[in-house]
């Protein structure tokens, strides 16, 4: 039997401690670390993408569960020693991260599924892995007649049952911009929506954090909200009375993108991960319940449970330029804080 003295044990413990302080140094080859949104995204990617990546490329993946803003903050704070290899981001945080130089450029030739993705979805520094569609969610039992336009949300009977959320999220920001347009404003003139919000805040059923909205809808605290089809499908799957309504001006779409972090340790495996995520097989599984993610691979036939019928539908939807939105967003958030509080 090997005898261990105190010095050996301390040396071993010290080595382990040092290994823990050096992320990546102790990682096995054939691995990649990717940030992923908590909740449905994490469940979906653990259940579908991780096994597919292991099977296709023999690469182990470790997920770091973080919201988009937290991912960007974490990488910025790491200052050149990234805690993970891949981001998953919405347009707002992606534009901020791109401006901060946090992405490696994307070489599309390293993606075997690149040709299966519509033109424009593989960009210089990111690859679209999923489309999100935003519109109005309502309780069909409470409202046999659904709201038809963004302006309807600010009139009775909808406003009294409305759940308001601010500019902290992508879906919240783009919804409020579209509401503003419906009241005669624009991305550069948000006065009309702030005027409407001021009037509506005393009547609205809730003004809540974005993450709290599905729970409030489930509990009957609110019966109308603006959200994405993914949330609607998940709640519907849990037996909640909820339906999606496309506003008269059109539903909003934005893309969720995968990016390789600047200075990533496992760049080759990051490409394999992205390639697997956009493959037809994986995209086909991710669109099904309980994940309900809108696919972006041309070989995938959309299932009936999605509120979108084909990739072509996405091109008819409303999109936004986040390079224009981001510089103004901080001021909008501050104004929302000041004007839409008690």
């Amino acid at each position: 039997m090997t005898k261990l003295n105190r010095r050996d044990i301390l040396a071993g413990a010290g080595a382990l401690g040092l290994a823990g302080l050096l992320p990546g140094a102790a990682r096995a080859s054939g691995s990649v670390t990717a940030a992923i949104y908590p909740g449905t995204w994490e469940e979906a990617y653990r259940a579908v993408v991780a096994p597919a990546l292991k099977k296709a490329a023999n690469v182990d993946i470790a997920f770091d569960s973080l919201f988009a803003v937290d991912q960007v903050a974490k990488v910025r704070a790491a200052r050149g020693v990234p805690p993970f290899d891949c981001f998953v981001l919405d347009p707002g945080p992606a534009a901020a991260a791109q401006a901060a130089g946090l992405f490696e450029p994307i070489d599309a030739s390293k993606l075997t599924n690149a040709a299966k993705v519509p033109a424009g979805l593989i960009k210089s520094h990111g690859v679209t892995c999923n489309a999100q569609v935003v519109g109005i969610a309502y309780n069909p039992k409470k409202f046999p007649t659904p709201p038809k336009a963004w302006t309807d949300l600010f009139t009775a009977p909808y406003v009294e049952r409305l759940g308001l959320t601010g500019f902290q999220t992508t879906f919240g920001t783009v919804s409020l911009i579209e509401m503003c347009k419906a009241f005669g404003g624009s991305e550069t003139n948000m006065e009309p929506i702030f005027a409407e919000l001021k009037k509506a805040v005393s009547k609205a059923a809730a003004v809540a954090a974005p993450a709290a909205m599905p729970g409030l809808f489930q509990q009957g605290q609110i019966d109308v909200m603006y959200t994405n089809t993914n949330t609607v499908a998940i709640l519907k799957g849990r037996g909640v009375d909820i339906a999606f309504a496309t506003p008269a001006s059109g539903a909003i779409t934005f893309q969720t993108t995968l990016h390789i972090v600047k200075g990533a340790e496992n760049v080759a495996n990051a490409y394999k991960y992205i390639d697997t995520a956009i493959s037809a097989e994986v995209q086909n599984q991710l669109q099904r319940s309980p994940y309900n993610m809108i696919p972006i691979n041309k070989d995938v036939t959309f299932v009936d449970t999605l509120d979108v019928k084909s990739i072509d539908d996405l091109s008819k939807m409303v999109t936004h330029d986040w390079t224009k939105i981001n510089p103004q967003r901080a001021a909008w958030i501050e104004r929302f804080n000041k004007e839409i509080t008690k």
Partner: protein
Amino acid sequence: MSAAAAAPGASPLRDTVEWRLAAPLGLTYAVFFAAPFLILLGISFYADAEQTRLGLDSWVKFYTDAFYLKVIFDTLKLGVLAVVATTILAYPLALVFRAASPRMQRVLIFIILMPLLTSVVIRTFAWIVILAREGVVNQTLMALGLTATPLNLLQTELGLVIALTQIEMPLMLLPLLTIMNQMDQNLVDASRALGASKWRTFFRVILPLTLPGWIAGATLVFASATTAFISQSVIGGARLVYLPSLIWQQSMVVYNWPFAAVASLTLLFTVLSGIMALSWLGRFAKTS
């Protein structure tokens, strides 16, 4: 402590050992508290979100804007309300505990500790189920005919204080129970025997004797309630802005770290000022 300055009878060897024993904790504090605190302080003196130039802009903006001053006041007020509510409910429960049989005390301790064994996230979401329009409270009130329409309990300061009272209650109860169990029953009996009413006995005997326990509990509740980011965000909603949610928003959404640093330091000093006030109260109670 140097050997030269050692107390009479203390050996230099013992002093060295004591210093070594304290070193790991001291080093941990230096690395994981003092250093980040100094970095935070440094960041707060950048004038812009991009951290390109130094200046007092973030401090000036925070302390000259009525909205942010109100956020500080609301955060302090929330802490005070949580302390008041937990105090009102904890004292009767502590008195019941004191009077209970050992078996009943074990049951009560289990009930008191149970919330601590549950995640604060779960407890917070449970309060959504209880306080929502179609929640337990509203359904009960409507079934009893006490209200025709559901009351708006969520997204209000009242709802948040109710939830925080339950969430923070163990922090008030545990120190109070400890000090109450150490209280000499003869003092209470003497007060009653000399003709003092139950209320007079409580205010003149029990309350002063249990004040150290209450101060410990109040300190924990105040610090915990003012920094309860999850409960404030989920139950309070966006209508109620407190320092923790403001810090998160400025650091994680707006990426204005200098401003977030100012808000963070303000929260730290707000909590510390509350703790110092309670500590002063404790010293005052001892001297009087």
